[in-house]
C-alpha cells in the first residue's frame, strides 16, 4: 500500500508476541520532534531527571489517555547509540536496563519522515538492541506536503515492527501510536552491523527506494534560499551584526518585561513579611519567619521572571533554527579561549544573573565545555553588583562622572577578561582534552512551537524553585541567623535617643521619627558588630588587612557572601545611613565614614581594591548552590569559590599596593 505520508499505522504479523507496556523510552536523532511528542503526550506531568552516575539529563513524564497510563522517558537526542558521548551512554544504559529506575518495557523510536535516509539507519541500530519497539514517523504531514509518499506497510515489513505516521506538532496519529505501543514487539529482521557505515547507507537507500516515492525521496536537492540565509547568518561580519541585534533584542526584552513581575514579587513578599510581623509576637520565631524564611525566599524567587523569560525566549529562538547558526558565529571568538560558540548565551545571560546563566549552559553538548562555562559564568558582572559598583566608583571619582563611568565600564571588562582567561587556564589544566569538534546539524528554519517553549520554561522554573526551596533557602536562613544572633542590647546612645524621641513625640512628631531612626541605625550597627557574623569578621580581619579593609569593611564583605548587594545595606547600617546609593547625600555620608582610629574608611587605595575584589570574588551562595546542582558535585562550587575568591584577593592586594604606592 503506497499512500501519501499522512497518518496511518502498519505492522507485520510475524515476530515475537507483543508485551504489556508500562514504561516507554523515547529515542531518536536530534531535531526529529521527539521532545515535541513527549510534551504533547505528558504536558505538565513531567519532570527533569538526573540519573545516578550520569551527567546528562532526561525527562520523565506520565501519559494518561483514557484508561491507558504510560510512563515515558524522553532520552537525549543522539545521532548514534554507540557513540562515545555521555548522551549516547545514557541512552544505552537506559535501553539495556542498567539504570534501574528507567528500564523500559518498550522503545519508541521517533524518526523524521523528511530525513529518512539517516533516520532509518538509526532505527536499524535501535531495533538491533532486542527491545520491543514501535517506530513513529514524525512530521508526516510536512513530508506529504513535500510530495513524499511513504509505503508504511512495506516499511513496517522491512523493519518488522509497528510503524505509525504522526505529526506531533499537530497532534495527529497519536491515538494510533499509543494503540501500536500495546503491540510493541522485538524485531526479527536483519540489519546492517554498524550504523553510519557505507553498508548501512546502502541498506537505507534500498529501503527508501522500495518504500518512499516522490520528488527528493532519495538524494539531495538544492535550496538556494536557505543557502543564502545560512551564508548571511554565519558570515563573519553580517552574521555578527545579526547576532548582536538578536541578542540585544532578547536581553532588552528580558530586562523590560521582567521588571514588573520582579517588582510585584518583592511587593508580595514585603507585604507577607509585614503581615507576619504584625500578627506574630516579638521573638525568635517571628524573626526567623520574617527575616530568615520570607526574606530569604524573596531574595531568590525574585529571579524567577528573568529565568522564565530567558528560557522561554531561548526555547523559541532554538526552535526557529537560528541558534545553531549563531553558535558558529560565536565559535570564532570563543574557541580562542577554549570555549564553544554555545557558551556565549550563558555568559551573556550571566550579566543579568549567574543563576539563569549557569542553567542555560545545558545548551552546551560537551561536558568539559559546559563545566568550563559554569566555572567562569559568575565572573560576568551581574545586576547584583551594580549598587556596589555605583557606590565605589562614586567614592573613587567623586565629582568626575566621566572617570566614574569609565571605571564602571572597566569593571565589566575586568570580569569578562577574568572569565575568558580562567576558561583558557581551565581547559589547559583541569579540563584538558579535546573539545568536541564544531559539527552541528543545521535544522530547517521554522516557526517555533509556543507550547514547547512554555513547557520548557515551566520545567526550568520548577527546577529552580525546587532548588531555591531547599538548598538556597537553608543557606539564606543560616546567613540570617549568623548576622542576627546572638542578640545584642542597644547601646546607651540608642536608648537615650529613644527616650528623647518619646519626650518630643507629642510636640514634634517629625523630630521624634528622626530620633527613632537614628536610634535604630545605632542599634543595628551594634547588633551587626556583636553578631556571630560580626565576630567572624573581627577574626577574619587580619586576612583582609593587606587589602586595606578595616573591621567594618570586613564584616560588610563577609555578610555580602550571601548576596553581593547586601554589602551596601550592611555598610549603610554600619555607617548609620540609608542604602540608596543614587542619593548623593548617602554617598557623602559613606565617604565620610571613619575607622576606629578616626582615619577614613574609603581611601583611594581601599576603594580601588574593594572594587576589584567585588568584580572578581564569588559572593553569591545561591550561585554556588546552582553550580552544585548543575554539575552534580560539590567539587566544582568549591573550586569556583576558591579560585574566584583567591584571584579576587590577589588582584585586590596588588591594586591596593599599586594605588598606595602612587599616593592614593
Amino acid at each position, binding site marked *: 500500500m503506497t499512500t501519501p505520508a499522512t497518518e496511518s499505522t502498519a505492522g507485520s504479523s510475524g515476530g515475537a508476541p507483543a508485551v504489556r507496556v508500562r514504561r516507554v523510552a523515547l529515542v531518536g536523532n536530534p531535531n526529529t520532534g521527539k521532545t515535541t511528542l513527549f510534551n504533547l503526550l505528558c504536558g505538565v506531568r513531567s519532570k527533569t531527571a538526573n540519573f545516578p552516575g550520569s551527567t546528562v539529563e532526561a525527562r520523565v513524564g506520565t501519559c494518561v489517555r483514557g484508561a491507558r497510563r504510560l510512563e515515558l522517558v524522553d532520552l537525549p537526542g543522539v545521532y548514534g547509540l554507540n557513540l562515545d558521548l555521555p548522551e549516547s551512554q545514557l541512552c544505552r544504559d537506559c535501553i539495556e536496563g542498567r539504570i534501574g529506575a528507567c528500564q523500559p518495557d518498550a522503545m519508541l523510536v521517533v524518526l523524521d519522515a523528511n530525513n529518512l535516509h539517516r533516520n532509518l539507519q538509526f532505527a536499524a541500530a535501535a531495533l538491533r538492541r532486542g527491545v520491543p519497539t514501535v517506530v513513529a514517523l514524525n512530521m508526516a504531514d510536512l513530508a506529504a506536503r513535500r510530495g513524499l509518499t511513504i509505503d508504511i506497510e512495506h516499511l513496517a515489513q522491512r523493519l518488522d515492527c509497528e510503524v505509525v505516521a504522526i505529526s506531533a506538532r499537530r497532534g495527529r496519529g497519536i491515538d494510533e501510536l499509543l494503540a501500536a505501543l500495546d503491540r510493541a514487539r522485538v524485531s526479527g529482521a536483519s540489519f546492517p552491523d554498524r550504523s553510519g*557505515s557505507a553498508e548501512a547507507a546502502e541498506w537505507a537507500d534500498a529501503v527508501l527506494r522500495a518504500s518512499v516515492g516522490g520528488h527528493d525521496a532519495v538524494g539531495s536537492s538544492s535550496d538556494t534560499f536557505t543557502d543564502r540565509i545560512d551564508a548571511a547568518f554565519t558570515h563573519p561580519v553580517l552574521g555578527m551584526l545579526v547576532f548582536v541585534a538578536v541578542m540585544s533584542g532578547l536581553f532588552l526584552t528580558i530586562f523590560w518585561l521582567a521588571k514588573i513581575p520582579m517588582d510585584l514579587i518583592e511587593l508580595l513578599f514585603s507585604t507577607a513579611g509585614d503581615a507576619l510581623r504584625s500578627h506574630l509576637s516579638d521573638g525568635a520565631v517571628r524573626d526567623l519567619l520574617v527575616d530568615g524564611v520570607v526574606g530569604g525566599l524573596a531574595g531568590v524567587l525574585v529571579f524567577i521572571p528573568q529565568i522564565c523569560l530567558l528560557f522561554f525566549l531561548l526555547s523559541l529562538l532554538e526552535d526557529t533554527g537560528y541558534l545553531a547558526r549563531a553558535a558558529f558565529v560565536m565559535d570564532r571568538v570563543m574557541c580562542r579561549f577554549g570555549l564553544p560558540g554555545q557558551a556565549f548565551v550563558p555568559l551573556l545571560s550571566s550579566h543579568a544573573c549567574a543563576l539563569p546563566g549557569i542553567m542555560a549552559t545545558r545548551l552546551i553538548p560537551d561536558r568539559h565545555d559546559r563545566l568550563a562555562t559554569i566555572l567562569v559564568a559568575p565572573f560576568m558582572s551581574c545586576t547584583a553588583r551594580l549598587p556596589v559598583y555605583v557606590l565605589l566608583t562614586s567614592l573613587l571619582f567623586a565629582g568626575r562622572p566621566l572617570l566614574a563611568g569609565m571605571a564602571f565600564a572597566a569593571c565589566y571588562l575586568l570580569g569578562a577578561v577574568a572569565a575568558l582567561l580562567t576558561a583558557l587556564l581551565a581547559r589547559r589544566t583541569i579540563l584538558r582534552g579535546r573539545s568536541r569538534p*564544531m559539527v552541528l546539524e543545521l535544522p530547517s528554519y521554522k516557526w517555533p512551537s509556543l507550547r514547547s517553549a512554555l513547557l520548557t520554561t515551566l520545567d526550568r522554573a520548577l527546577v529552580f524553585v525546587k532548588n531555591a526551596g531547599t538548598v538556597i533557602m537553608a543557606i539564606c536562613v543560616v546567613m540570617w541567623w549568623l548576622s542576627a544572633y546572638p542578640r545584642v542590647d542597644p547601646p546607651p546612645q540608642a536608648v537615650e535617643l529613644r527616650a528623647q524621641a518619646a519626650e518630643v513625640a507629642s510636640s514634634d512628631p517629625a523630630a521624634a521619627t528622626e530620633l527613632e531612626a537614628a536610634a535604630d541605625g545605632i542599634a543595628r550597627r551594634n547588633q551587626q558588630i556583636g553578631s556571630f557574623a560580626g565576630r567572624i569578621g573581627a577574626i577574619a580581619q587580619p586576612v583582609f588587612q593587606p587589602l586595606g579593609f578595616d573591621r567594618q569593611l570586613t564584616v560588610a564583605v563577609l555578610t555580602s557572601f550571601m548576596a553581593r548587594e547586601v554589602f551596601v545595606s550592611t555598610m549603610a547600617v554600619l555607617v548609620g545611613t540609608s542604602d540608596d546609593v543614587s542619593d548623593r547625600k548617602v554617598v557623602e555620608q559613606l565617604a565620610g565614614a571613619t575607622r576606629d582610629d578616626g582615619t577614613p574608611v574609603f581611601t583611594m587605595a581601599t576603594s580601588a581594591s574593594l572594587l576589584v575584589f567585588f568584580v572578581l570574588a564569588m559572593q553569591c551562595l545561591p550561585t554556588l548552590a546552582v553550580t552544585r546542582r548543575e554539575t552534580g558535585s560539590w567539587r566544582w562550587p568549591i573550586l569556583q569559590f576558591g579560585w574566584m575568591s583567591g584571584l579576587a584577593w590577589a588582584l585586590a592586594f596588588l591594586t591596593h599596593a599599586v594605588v598606595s604606592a602612587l599616593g592614593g
Partner: protein
Amino acid sequence: MGTHKRQHHEPRILMRERAFIPVPLSQLRPGDRARIHADGMKCDACDLLNAMGLTDRCEIRVCKVGEPCIVQVNTTRLGLSSKIAKQIMVVPSPDDPSRRSA
C-alpha cells in the same frame, strides 16, 4: 579579485582531473557536488560525522565554504568547522551541472 586570490593560494586543478582526484572538502565551491572519498574521513569526529549521515561514498552538496563549511547530505544540512572540512577528502562529481559551464 577574489578569483585571483583563490588561484594564487590553491593551484587550479583542471575539471577532468578534479573529477578523479580526491580533494579536501574545504577546496570545493558553493553549489559543487561531490562524494565522500572511501576512507576519506580521518578526522577527530569521524564516528559522529558517520552517524550524522556523512558516510563513505555518500553524495554531498556544498552550500557554503569557509567558516563554517555547510554541506547538504540528502535532506540534512551540516555545519562543519573549516578545520574538520580540511580533513574530509571528497571526489568532485564529474556530472555536476555547475561544472559543465565552468
